[in-house]
């Protein structure tokens, strides 16, 4: 295996929060699948913008407003490059990936789906890519079909063409927030198109950790959040193919999304403003742009390589130390997984595990990870989840393993 060229100590040094000690010892933050920490450059970019350039965008003639608009739109260009989209105006700023997926279901779904139409999802989706479609089941009477999982937590594509037969949309995650599984996005997009369906990619776990290329994928929509990729919370992205976005009715109504408003109606603004009603998260867009600069500085290929290294180390360390006492969900092959691990440990409830790990400043999530259907599929009602990012190293894996041992002391299994 090759090893990443990143100096992780130097990367970690750029995150002020990770320098913090709690009760006299360092933090081991293993909850980045939930939300990521922020580097100094993002914090500074947002502060600098608020101290020097903050103003309304797209609606005032003075120089300061023009400066702010340039920075806001500059962030859109950075997003477009980061995901290799064709045009800036295919990038719509939303609140988060959840809102992006809701936008597609609400606007595209209500315009294009009728009773009996089929939308295909997978059994590893989180609630944001399930509930908006359930709402269309209730409202329109559409039908949902589910791509099943293999026992090692990958998509079972055996019957994919049957499932997609007659479907209008296939909406799937590029990386599971529970299992860490990376799905074959390009293959899934091709299968959707072969069946005449559009391909909607939930990238909120994938985009922060991998090179993203919506053109190579031949995807139709991509949703992701800023806060999982070192950027601020409060802003997300929906990228969509221009012709699809153009044909869709607007989502939220209000200022900025209109070309004209009269007493008898309105006309919408062109893309992307059509889907950006009201004052957007301006400072957050600048922060998102800075986060993408930060990740580009590291190189996404290096980020991915580093996380494969950490994932491989985590799998070998945890299984060598704990054997059958630990059950890691999801695939063991790091080629098809990220560094997000849900696990069961010695029969100790995840909530108790996370409490004990917290005593060692090890931050993991315990619960259903907003993926209750998947939890039922796995036959559990909760898991503990350790998720690693570019600021975590193999030492963090060792601290996690030591902390797991201390849980055994308390629960005495």
């Amino acid at each position, binding site marked *: 295996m090759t090893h990443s060229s990143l100096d992780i100590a130097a990367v970690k040094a750029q995150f002020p929060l990770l320098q913090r000690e709690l009760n006299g010892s360092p933090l081991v933050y293993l909850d980045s699948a939930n939300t990521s920490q922020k580097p100094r450059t993002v914090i500074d970019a947002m502060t600098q913008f608020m101290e020097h350039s903050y103003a309304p965008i797209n609606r005032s003639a003075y120089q300061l407003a023009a400066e702010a608009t340039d920075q806001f739109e500059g962030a859109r260009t950075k997003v477009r490059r980061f995901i290799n989209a064709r045009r800036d105006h295919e990038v719509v700023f939303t609140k988060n990936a959840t809102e992006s997926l809701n936008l597609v279901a609400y606007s595209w779904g209500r315009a294009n789906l009728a009773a009996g139409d089929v939308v295909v999802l997978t059994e590893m989706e989180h609630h944001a890519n399930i509930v908006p479609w359930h709402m269309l089941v209730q409202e329109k009477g559409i039908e949902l079909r589910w791509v099943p999982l293999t026992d090692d937590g990958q998509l079972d594509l055996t019957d994919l063409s049957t499932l997609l037969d007659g479907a209008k949309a296939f909406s799937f995650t590029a990386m599971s927030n529970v299992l860490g599984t990376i799905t074959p996005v390009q293959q899934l997009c091709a299968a959707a198109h072969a069946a005449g369906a559009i391909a909607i990619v939930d990238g909120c776990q994938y985009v922060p950790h991998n090179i993203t290329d919506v053109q190579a994928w031949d995807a139709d929509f991509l949703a992701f959040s800023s806060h999982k990729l070192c950027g601020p919370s409060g802003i997300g992205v929906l990228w969509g193919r221009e012709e699809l976005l153009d044909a869709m009715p607007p989502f939220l109504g209000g200022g900025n999304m209109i070309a004209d408003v009269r007493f008898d109606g309105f006309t919408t603004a062109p893309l992307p403003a059509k889907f950006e009603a009201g004052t957007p998260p301006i400072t957050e867009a600048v922060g998102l742009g800075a986060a993408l600069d930060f990740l580009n500085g590291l190189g996404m290929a290096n980020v991915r390589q580093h996380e494969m290294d950490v994932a491989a180390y985590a799998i070998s360390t945890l299984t060598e130390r704990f054997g059958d006492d630990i059950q890691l969900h999801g695939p063991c092959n790091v080629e098809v997984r990220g560094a997000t691990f849900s696990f069961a440990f010695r029969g100790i409830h995840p*909530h*108790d595990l996370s*409490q*004990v790990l917290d*005593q060692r400043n090890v931050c993991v999530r*315990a*619960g*259903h990870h907003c993926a209750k259907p998947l939890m039922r599929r796995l036959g559990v*009602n909760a898991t503990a989840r350790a998720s690693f990012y570019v600021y975590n190293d193999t030492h963090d894996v060792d601290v996690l393993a030591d902390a797991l041992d201390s849980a055994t002391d308390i629960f005495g299994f």
Partner: protein
Amino acid sequence: MPGLEDLYREIILDHHRNPRNRGELAPPASHAVGHNPLCGDEIDVYLDVTDGIITDVKVGGQGCSISQSSASMMSQAVKGKPVDEVRALVRRFKGMMSIPDEDGNPIEPDPAVKLGDLEALQGVVKFPVRIKCATLAWNTLLEALEQG
């Protein structure tokens, strides 16, 4: 940070390892299901109530050591008790968990209501995110009483 010994008292771990009154009761027993949407815990409470007395209680579901032991202790504490005494106990327990009354005021401890083993759960208050674990069974008990 408070120590884990405040949370995981031996009596709590004992109820977690050997939960009392596990099982189900057949209808016409009342049955309520409680969910903790944050962590996915689920608790089933079954009650037989005759002439205002809880004659039998069973607990099912899955959860962490705190929610399971609290449910186990709850089942022991309410079995054979009149419903009005049980309601007073729920109120006393919620007061111990720093949960305010319906009007948002703190619940003053009623010295006439004895907590017994339940006092072991007092340490949960020092871990605010776990209060919901400890109270899940009690809220589910109230729901089951409403059905009865």
